């Protein structure tokens, strides 16, 4: 009897203690140079400071894997770096935990978090903005003919600038660019794209260069295509081109006209067993100093106080310096039309 009681006490102690022992959790992001920068400026400092261990994994974005984990109840990830385009959907489908924005620390200069972060960074209750990145197009100085392209119209002008153009195989960004190149003001793009005429107009514009297009699936292919001559102009995440210019000394040039910028956000997977730890990590990772580290891959911070740590020379290369020329990707629009435009896009490709 006595032993049984003792055993019970021991068991109770064990269950009570186990959350304290679970000091390891999993973070997931996009890998590559970006993942390396996150490892260096967000994960490593956090692990050194807190003593917790973070397993860092890669994924290619989207919400399919999240959905599979949450629906099966087999939650393997805790923190996930997700694009705003997917965040909207993941959050409203209950795949993410709500993040308490009022617990975010103030900036290093003392500005309260609610003023320090840009409005978009805290727009969704499920996450905290981590970087500002953008999709633009770039050309290779060695292979470009006919001058130096400078506008989005030049991407569609195959008579002045002959050669292949490489675009990512999806309707996102391409549809926006087609309309802007066709003379639609950036502010009206999404409104027009939600009509049948607008979509037809975008496809008609894309038709004009269809024979000169090369399609790729992953951002890593963009600098590669530009380098090996597969295309003279490529659509790319700005960080990939920046990295190729900076580290590999490639003769690439970025064109900022009509770039489509977006945020990446740290969020917590619904049902995570390490929710408190995950929140703690996100609070650290989105504080002033760690965020500024993403300048290494030319992604801008989402809070004002981080700019104090950004190198003057890098500033003009960050998307945040070009917001006037760009257009923010609309998560709401793509949640509405992503699937139907995806089908129409596939149909158009097959024609």
């Amino acid at each position, binding site marked *: 009897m006595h032993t049984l009681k003792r055993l019970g006490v021991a068991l109770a102690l064990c269950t009570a203690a186990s959350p304290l022992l679970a000091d390891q959790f999993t973070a997931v992001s996009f890998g590559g140079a970006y993942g390396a920068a996150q490892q260096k400026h967000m994960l490593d400092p956090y692990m050194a400071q807190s003593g917790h261990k973070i397993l860092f994994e890669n994924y290619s974005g989207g919400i399919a894997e999240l959905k599979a984990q949450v629906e099966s109840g087999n939650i393997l990830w805790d923190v996930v770096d997700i694009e705003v385009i997917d965040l909207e959907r993941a959050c409203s*489908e209950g795949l993410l935990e709500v993040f308490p924005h009022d617990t975010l620390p103030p900036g290093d200069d003392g500005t309260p978090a609610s003023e320090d972060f840009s409005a978009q960074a805290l727009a969704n209750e499920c996450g905290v903005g981590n970087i500002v990145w953008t999709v633009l197009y770039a050309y290779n100085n060695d292979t470009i003919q006919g001058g130096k392209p400078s506008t989005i119209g030049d991407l569609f002008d195959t008579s002045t600038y002959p050669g292949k153009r490489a675009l990512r195989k999806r309707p996102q960004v391409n549809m926006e660019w087609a309309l802007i190149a066709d003379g639609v003001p950036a502010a009206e793009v999404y409104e027009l794209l939600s009509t049948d005429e607008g979509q037809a107009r975008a496809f008609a514009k894309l038709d004009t260069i269809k024979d000169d297009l090369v399609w790729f699936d992953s951002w890593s292919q963009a600098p590669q295509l530009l380098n090996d001559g*597969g295309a003279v102009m490529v659509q790319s995440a700005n960080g990939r081109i920046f990295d190729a210019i900076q580290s590999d000394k490639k003769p690439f040039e970025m064109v900022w006209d009509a770039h489509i910028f977006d945020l990446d956000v740290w969020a917590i997977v619904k049902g995570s067993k390490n929710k408190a730890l995950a929140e703690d990590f996100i609070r650290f990772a989105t504080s002033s100093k760690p965020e500024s580290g993403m300048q290494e891959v030319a992604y801008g911070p989402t809070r004002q106080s981080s700019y104090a740590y950004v190198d003057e020379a890098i500033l003009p290369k960050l998307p945040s310096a070009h917001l006037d020329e760009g257009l923010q990707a609309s998560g709401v629009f793509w949640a509405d039309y992503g699937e139907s435009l995806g089908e129409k896009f596939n149909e158009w490709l097959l024609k």
Partner: protein
Amino acid sequence: MHQAELSAASAGAPGGGSTSGLPSHAGLSAAEKSQSRKVLRRRKLLTLAFVAPLIIFVLIAFVAPIGTMLYRSVYHPTVAQLIPETLVALAAWDETGEARPSDSVLNIFTVELQQLANDRDSGKLAEEINRSLPGSSSLIKSSARKIKNLDPEMLSRDGASKLLAMQAKWKNVEIWREMKLAGAVFTNDFYLTALDLMHNAQGEIVARDTQIYVKLYMKSLWIALLITVLTGIISYPLAYYLATAPARTANTLMVFVLLPFWTSLLVRTTSWIALLQTNGVINSFLQSINVISEPLELLYTQFSTVIAMTHILLPFMILPLYSVMKGIDPSYLRAALSLGAKPIPAFIRIYMPMTVPGLSAGALLVFIISIGYYITPALVGGTDGQMISNIIAFHMQSSNNWELAAALGSLLLGLILLLYWIYDRLVGVSNIKLG
């Protein structure tokens, strides 16, 4: 045979102890009969135990996933679980008419929508409805956000006017029609979509605006057929040479057939990328000998899919052909020749018919493998080289439309079974010979 031996043995045994045997089993007592049945049963159980791991494996790895897939393609309870009471209320409403459902239905809906917003499930409903009516995702989600903080008591009385005030789109008949249709737990909608068809407002089946899946099925069939013919043309002479060459040469050459067969699929596909890309081996070579001035566009086309898959699937054609040809007695052909047949007619009329079992085995293997092929088209296919499996993967991984993926997969399975049946009628499955 076994039974006969057994009864003979017991009949021969003296003094079974009982005399109540049936006339036809003279001399076999009841105890002996039950004994023999027991022995038989034990043997059957033992046999079953031997194959049990295999049966369990087949059940888990084959029958269960395919069953789940078939089930998922028609069973779709999401909407029915999200807004059960609205659906009950909608049942009485005529969706083919021009009038939206009454305010009382809308009241019920607002209460359920608020519940969804609180449970953070409104996005699920939005995604489901948006699938058939693009644009409704933001409508449902924004309404859910606004409705979240209203008083549920008030909603159950006056939710309709609030809802209509928020977004005029709720006045449209379409959204309610789609909601009612999506509420069906068992549905053939995904099969219709997979065949580029849809229900119109009157419930008739009509063609969809976007026509992609039927085209993709046809294209997959065409590519698979092309690959089968190509592997056949390449393999036949090669297998013939292997089968007739001296053992030493044949063995050496066989290594060249088998080595790639043992090499990883990814490695073989990637090496085609290295060969075919813009500044790849083939283009550089052709440019250096001045055959072409501009690099040819070889990679990311249907051509690259066909050539890479032909290479990868060659062994599946060569090996059955080779083993069948190896078993053909050369004296038949010699006899034909010595009886005065010319070499080519003799080959066509005597030798080739004997190789048909190997040829059909190879053709069936290559065709069925290639019609559902995924990795190679995904890597080297670009746009024109995509096959139906790539779009299935797209719906699994990107668009999250697992039901449509299941319907597309089930149709592919049905298509293959149909082709197999046709093949059986034309050639006969019993003619297949793998060795």
